[in-house]
């Protein structure tokens, strides 16, 4: 499954990187109720820039998210307030946020902050 080639990426002769996408705190409900996804994305975005987290978020919205309520994940083209992004279990702020360049095998975790108690 994880090794599957994305034909559209192949056409443009683009290499793919594999990564683990995880959701927590209820966000998984927006992604087919599945907490963990293994996906592949092109190494470079449409303007030939190396794939960063900003590109990944757009990719997830367009390809992985079946739920139509995009505004529960992204607001004004940014991750909505209340969602933390962790790159290999470290706060994305430590890694450069949207500018972080994705490496093969990375685990990106999106956590919706809980408030109940």
């Amino acid at each position: 499954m994880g090794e599957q080639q994305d034909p559209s990426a192949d056409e443009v002769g683009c290499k793919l990187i594999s990564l683990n996408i995880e959701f927590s705190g209820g966000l998984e409900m927006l992604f087919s109720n599945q907490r963990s996804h293994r996906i592949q994305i092109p190494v470079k975005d449409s303007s030939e820039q190396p794939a960063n987290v900003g590109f990944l978020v757009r990719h997830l919205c367009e390809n992985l998210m079946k739920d139509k309520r995009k505004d529960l994940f992204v607001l004004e083209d940014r991750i909505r307030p209340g969602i933390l992004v962790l790159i290999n279990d470290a706060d994305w702020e430590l890694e450069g946020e949207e500018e972080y360049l994705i490496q093969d095998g990375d685990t990106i975790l999106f956590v919706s902050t809980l408030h109940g108690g």
Partner: protein
Amino acid sequence: MKTILEAENEALKKRISELEAQLASRSNDASVTSQQPYPPPNAANKSEVKLSLEEYKRYGRQMILPEIGIEGQMSLKRSRVLIVGVGGLGCPAAAYLAGAGVGTLGVIDHDTVENSNLHRQIIHSTSRVGAPKVVSAITYLRDLNPHPNYVPHVEPLTTENALQIMAEYDLVLDCTDHPAIRYLINDVAVVMNIPIVSASALRTDGQLIVLNNPPGVGPCYRCVWPRPPPAESVVGCGEGGILGPVVGLMGIMQAIEAIKIITKNPARDIGRTTMTLFAAYGASPFRCLKMRGKKAGCVACGSPERVGEKITREGIEDGRMDYVAFCGGRAGMRELREDERVSVAEYKEVVDKGVEHLLLDVRDKTQFGICQLAGSLNIPFSEFEDSKHEDSEAEAIKSKFQDQPKDRPVYVICRLGNDSQIVTRQLKQAAIFPDDQVFDIKGGIAEWARSGIAGEFPEY
């Protein structure tokens, strides 16, 4: 029942006045110590506390741990901990901290015990349903360990009282259930130089983070969450549900962190702030995440670029901070006009008269499975929400009612009467049924059950 409560009430009032007297006599040192930097003021007056022989025995099993020792036990006895919210998190946290021998344990909550709390709020009890949670909690705690000073605060924590109340404590446990109060606790704790042990839980997940620790060094709530989530994305345990032991576990972990903060020499051990995630049904239930540090420009604990944005004691005190508005207020429902709604009694009449109609229940499938009214059609609210993103919302909605006669009145019901209003409006706009024949049932299934209008019906 009432007389027991009254007696408890009397006893607590007496205790309050005793404590107030004690505090008054100590007020001089309090005003000095509250300005001292971390470590908390209790570290300075080592000689003041002593353990009784009974206490040596009671705490022996934890005192023999090298992590605690006699010094740790003395620190616990000198410490003053405030628990904000004595619900699913606060109950186990309070029990373990009382058991461990914390010297002063303050408990603040304005709520009363309800029967639907008891699957998780384990220090309350069936016999104390209706009692203030704070009174119920202290009744349990005093029986568990009579040594600590228990300080009841039967009121909500507000901008008016927060500074005064929190000034009496060295550590605060945020066991609340709404972002507005979480920001308030944070801002006051930062101003007062108090560390925060913060936890939250929903459904089968929990989160734990220690903030402002040591004060002025570790990140605060606003460093991690500078902007509040949109109000409509905030789900409480009442709506989302909660598995009792999940929130209990998070509360117990708060007690562990509190004990660590109180008994550790903070200067020796400043680690990176981490957040612990717990997912009961996850492949690896515990995860520890490395979090960002204190933000230089944080409006609470840092130096914001625009100086006027800095949150100050005065700003909180004079009510300049509107936390509810900051978090987008409460979702007030005024979707429909009065003539577009019927009461449960009016709907009961429709049923009794045998009027042909469609009853549309928009709760999710799990809730619909718990109980439902006879003959109702279940189409979950989420499907109506999804239809808003279709090319034609009206067509998407219409397709759901293909098999239904269109000449009959439609009554829409949900759990509490909010979602049903939104769906009623959508149905009217989609013009599938005659416009004046679509009604919302006020108060939903909950009101149907509470009113007892059709005999026994489960309330959940």
